[in-house]
């Protein structure tokens, strides 16, 4: 709609001076709002509109694709010489050089550069700018940083068919190499073209394993010799033990004979401390623990059958799944079994029957990991079913500390070699948990999802900072733990010792109390048995049992009904008395309705 205001002026009046005068306001046009137009719009209230005068920017994340890099040497050859000069010919090069030296621009530039250079040289000689000024200042203690762990590298199984990383072992000398045992433990899932190799990785190079170990059957576990970093021993899926020397190649130097080895896969093999440094022992689910001397693997030096009745009966033996040996306690060792029992044994016993010292009933399922605390050897950690438990050697009834039941199965655990209160566990949902029992006992201090598939093995390097965990798809992940979790804190040992003592004492008290109760029960049942001498021996007939049960049931029901009736009477009596004078009696019912009427009463 067009609004037009017409203004006219006579031509003769052009150029005349303007005479201004007041005039009241005149309404020229009034355009009322048209409600029908409003229907074309949707009202939005309130409306937030940010106003800022700046450039539009967007955030974008980019992740480069993983590329494989390779290190190799380059052979440098002299170059840069002009075409007519042959660098090998000394005469030609000398001639070229002489020619350049006669060039004027050369002389000028070198003179100029020379003066600049001299200035700097003199500067260097005048003051040492990197002198250490505050040498005696003590290192300020940094505030402990939040616990964290960073993945450094992932070592993937180079074969097509991925196998689980079931065993890991760090190189004893500085931990620059990691040996990983690959096998498929799932029942009948091994395919024909699955490779049997296991690898030794250099932690700097995740692209290619440094060395391959080729056993006759896939390795389930392996261990570096702590005394001799070139030798390794591994336990195979078919029960044999193989011994490698990395200087001698990928084939095992010696393999134990099939008849004398285990009948089931060897789940754990550990080097022992001995004068010769060649002793190891291995455990397997066939119920045996065998001792070997690696110089002669044709037969084991000793055999122990894990039969709890001490008869050496293989049929009744418990299958062993983990072993524990601490070099500070060379005469004792412990075996974790499939049945959830931890057996503590003495190596120096004369007869096999005396070898088994005691047992601990630990888990509902197989004990997958077993390790003594390196600082407090009397306490050990076991992992199995959905919990991790800490035990004291003296208390056989139960563990002194345990974690909550976790969401998924725990498959491996180990203590940190530098901090006595820290241990690591891995679970089947691919999570690595770091527990610091001095800090938090209910949940892990740090919980990291390492990968999507299950994690099966875990090993901490001796410096306590690097942790390797192996997954089901053959990926061994290397993580670095933050310094807060890998440096010994002040008073840690004493605090932890106090904690263990306290828990042990508590368990002892509980055990004593249990024993008392049991004694009392026994004496009471003995007494009641003496009273019922007149009664017939043996069990009551089923009718009598039924009638007795009925009688008990009815008496309980009747007492309950009586109690309810009493309570109702009480309530009615209370309702008849009004709360305050003049109040509406009908409202009293709501005022005085007991709040506990709806909750069920139990004796």
């Amino acid at each position, binding site marked *: 709609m067009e609004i037009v205001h017409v203004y006219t002026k006579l031509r003769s009046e052009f150029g005349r001076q303007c005479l201004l005068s007041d005039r009241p306001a005149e309404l020229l046009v009034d355009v009322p709002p048209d409600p029908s137009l409003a229907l074309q719009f949707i009202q939005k209230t309130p409306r937030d509109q940010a106003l800022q005068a700046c450039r539009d920017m967007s955030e974008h994340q980019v992740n480069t694709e993983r590329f494989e890099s390779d290190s190799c040497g380059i052979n*440098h050859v*002299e*170059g*840069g*010489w*002009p075409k007519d000069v042959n660098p090998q010919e000394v005469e030609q090069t000398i001639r*070229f*050089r002489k020619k*350049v*030296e006669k060039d004027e*621009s*050369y*002389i000028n*530039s*070198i*003179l*100029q*550069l*020379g*003066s*600049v*250079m*001299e200035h*700097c*040289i*003199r500067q*260097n*000689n*005048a*003051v*040492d700018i*990197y002198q250490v000024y505050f040498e005696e200042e003590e290192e300020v203690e940094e505030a402990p940083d939040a616990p964290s762990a960073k993945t450094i590298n992932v070592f993937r199984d180079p074969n097509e068919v991925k196998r689980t990383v079931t065993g890991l072992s760090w190189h004893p000398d500085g931990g620059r190499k990691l040996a990983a045992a690959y096998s498929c433990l799932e029942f009948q899932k091994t395919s024909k073209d699955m490779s049997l190799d296991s690898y030794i990785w250099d932690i700097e190079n995740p692209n290619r394993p440094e060395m391959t170990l080729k056993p006759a059957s896939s390795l389930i576990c392996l261990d570096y010799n702590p005394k001799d970093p070139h030798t390794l021993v591994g336990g195979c899926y078919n029960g044999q033990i193989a011994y490698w020397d990395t200087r001698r190649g990928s084939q095992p130097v010696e393999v134990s004979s099939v008849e004398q080895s285990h009948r089931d896969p060897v789940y754990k093999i550990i080097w022992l401390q001995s004068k010769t440094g060649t002793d190891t022992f291995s455990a397997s689910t066939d119920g045996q623990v065998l001792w070997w001397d690696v110089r002669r693997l044709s037969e084991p030096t000793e055999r122990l059958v894990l039969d709890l009745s001490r008869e050496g009966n293989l049929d009744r033996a418990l299958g062993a799944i983990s072993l524990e040996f601490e070099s500070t306690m060379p005469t004792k060792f412990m075996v974790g079994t499939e049945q959830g029992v931890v057996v503590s044994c003495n190596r120096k016993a004369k007869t096999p029957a005396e070898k088994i010292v005691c047992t601990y009933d630990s888990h509902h399922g197989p004990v997958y990991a077993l390790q003594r605390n390196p600082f407090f050897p009397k306490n050990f950690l076991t992992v199995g079913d959905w919990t991790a438990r800490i035990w004291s050697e003296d208390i056989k009834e139960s563990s002194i500390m345990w974690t909550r039941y976790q969401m998924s199965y725990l498959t491996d655990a180990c203590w940190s070699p530098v901090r006595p209160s820290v241990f690591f566990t891995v679970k089947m949902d691919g999570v690595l948990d770091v527990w610091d029992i001095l800090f938090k006992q209910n949940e892990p201090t740090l919980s990291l999802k390492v990968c999507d598939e299950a994690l099966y093995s875990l090993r901490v390097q001796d410096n306590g900072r690097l942790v390797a965990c192996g997954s089901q798809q053959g990926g061994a992940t290397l993580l670095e733990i933050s310094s807060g979790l890998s440096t010994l804190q002040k008073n840690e040992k004493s605090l932890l010792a106090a904690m263990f003592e306290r828990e042990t004492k508590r368990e002892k008290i509980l055990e004593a109390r249990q024993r008392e109760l049991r004694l009392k029960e026994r004496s009471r049942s003995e007494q009641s048995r003496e009273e019922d001498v007149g009664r017939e021996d043996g069990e009551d007939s089923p009718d009598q049992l039924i009638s007795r049960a009925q009688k008990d049931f009815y008496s309980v029901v009747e007492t309950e009904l009586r109690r309810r009736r009493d309570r109702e009477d009480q309530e009615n009596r209370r309702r008849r008395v009004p709360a305050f004078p003049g109040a509406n009696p009908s409202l009293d019912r709501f005022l005085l309705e007991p709040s506990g009427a709806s909750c069920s009463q139990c004796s």
Partner: protein
Amino acid sequence: MLIEETLKRIQSQKGVQGIIIVNSEGIPIKTTLDNSSTVQYAGLIHQLVMKARSTVRDIDPQNDLTFLRVRSKKNEIMIAPDKDYFLIVIQNPSD
């Protein structure tokens, strides 16, 4: 003549271990070190100077590299670049 004097003066300063003059193509013109070290220094430092110069000029095209010092644990390598040549001096700093 003049150059010899300059180089002699530089060589006589305290801590100077060696001097190399390299041209823009990386060919060592004059040196006081043995041949293999010279060739190594010339090749490697030439690349470094090129990179440093291009870095400075990328940040500000009006700017140019005037001097480059590479301090390491054992010694200091000082490089004075020019349009066609550069002068490299290896010095052991005062200590």
